[in-house]
């Protein structure tokens, strides 16, 4: 959108320094009845002029060559590094089967140890349980009289005997 005095865009455009001489003249005409804004416009245009007049920094004539030389050095270093890595890989290639075998052996050994430990833990747990719980032997299951006695409820008169025996 063209900057005009009717919108605030004129200040944004002037402050970014993108105002042609034709636009500047037109803004001056439009703001001539608004002295404060006109004064602001003149200040901003003058500041643009000052910044534009600043001399350029001196650029070395061989900057492009220096950049390309630096890039070639980087590429040469990267290539040398890649060759070194490839050479190391080629030399150690004969050891690769042994290294792989060792790795597989370590992995299998570790897995086997884990399984053994797991089984030992299970066996230890069964031992503890079997010692704690006194499970009667099989022969008890054949003593039918004993089983029958377990079924017989106790006689009421026994309670009086127990009470008498308990008294000192």
């Amino acid at each position, binding site marked *: 959108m063209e900057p005009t005095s009717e919108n605030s865009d004129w200040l944004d455009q002037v402050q970014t320094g993108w105002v042609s001489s034709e636009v500047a003249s037109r803004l001056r005409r439009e703001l001539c009845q608004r002295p404060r804004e006109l004064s602001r416009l003149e200040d901003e245009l*003058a*500041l643009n002029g*000052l910044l534009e*007049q600043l001399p350029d*920094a001196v*650029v070395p004539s061989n*900057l492009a060559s220096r950049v390309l030389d630096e890039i070639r050095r980087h590429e040469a270093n990267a290539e040398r590094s890649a060759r070194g890595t490839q050479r190391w890989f080629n030399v150690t290639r004969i050891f690769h089967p042994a290294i792989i075998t060792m790795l597989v052996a370590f992995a299998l050994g570790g897995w086997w140890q884990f399984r053994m430990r797991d089984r030992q833990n299970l066996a230890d747990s069964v031992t503890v349980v079997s010692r704690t719980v006194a499970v009667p032997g099989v022969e008890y299951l054949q003593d039918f009289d004993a089983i029958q006695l377990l079924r017989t409820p106790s006689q009421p008169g026994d309670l009086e005997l127990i009470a008498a025996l308990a008294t000192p």
Partner: protein
Amino acid sequence: MPEPPPDADAALMLRIKCGGGDGADAMRDLVERWQQPVMNFIYRTLPDAIEAEDLAQAVFVQLWKTAERYRPSARFSTYLFTIARNLTLNEVRRRARHPADSIDASHPEDEDHPLRQFADPGALAADKVATRTELHAKVEAALAGLPEKQRTALLLCREGELSYEEIASVLDTSLQATKSIIHRAREVLRARLKPYLRSGEWNDE
């Protein structure tokens, strides 16, 4: 030299991405197109001629190193000045961490030049008297006295001809914040350079 179309820089970057001899030619073209704006930007932030040259070289080398990451969706100048600003800020921070360097020490690569060369508005170098005026020195000093974001925003307007949106992208701020930054920067400069703005000459008040 007529200004190439806006997407010419993007085309050059794509050639650099492809590499090879064509990439080297494209790199040379980019450097020659942008070396002046980049040098101006760096020199106004880090007024040390030799450091500015080295840093400008580093900016373009970094551009080549990061060519794979470049996407033509944004303007090339935004990408370039983001790199320039980051490298310049790194150098400023490095100097702040190592202030013990002697200002009289020689540059390790050039014994004829001091390690540090600062623009001194009050004492112009003899070989620059013919070309620089006291007014330029005042303007440069006023610019150098601005906070980093304000100075960077103004330089991006001047050197890169970036829009507000593009400047916001480089500064990593919002559009509104960027407008405020530029507005404040110009307010400060207008105040500091008031004696010249209307008269056309420097009159100390």
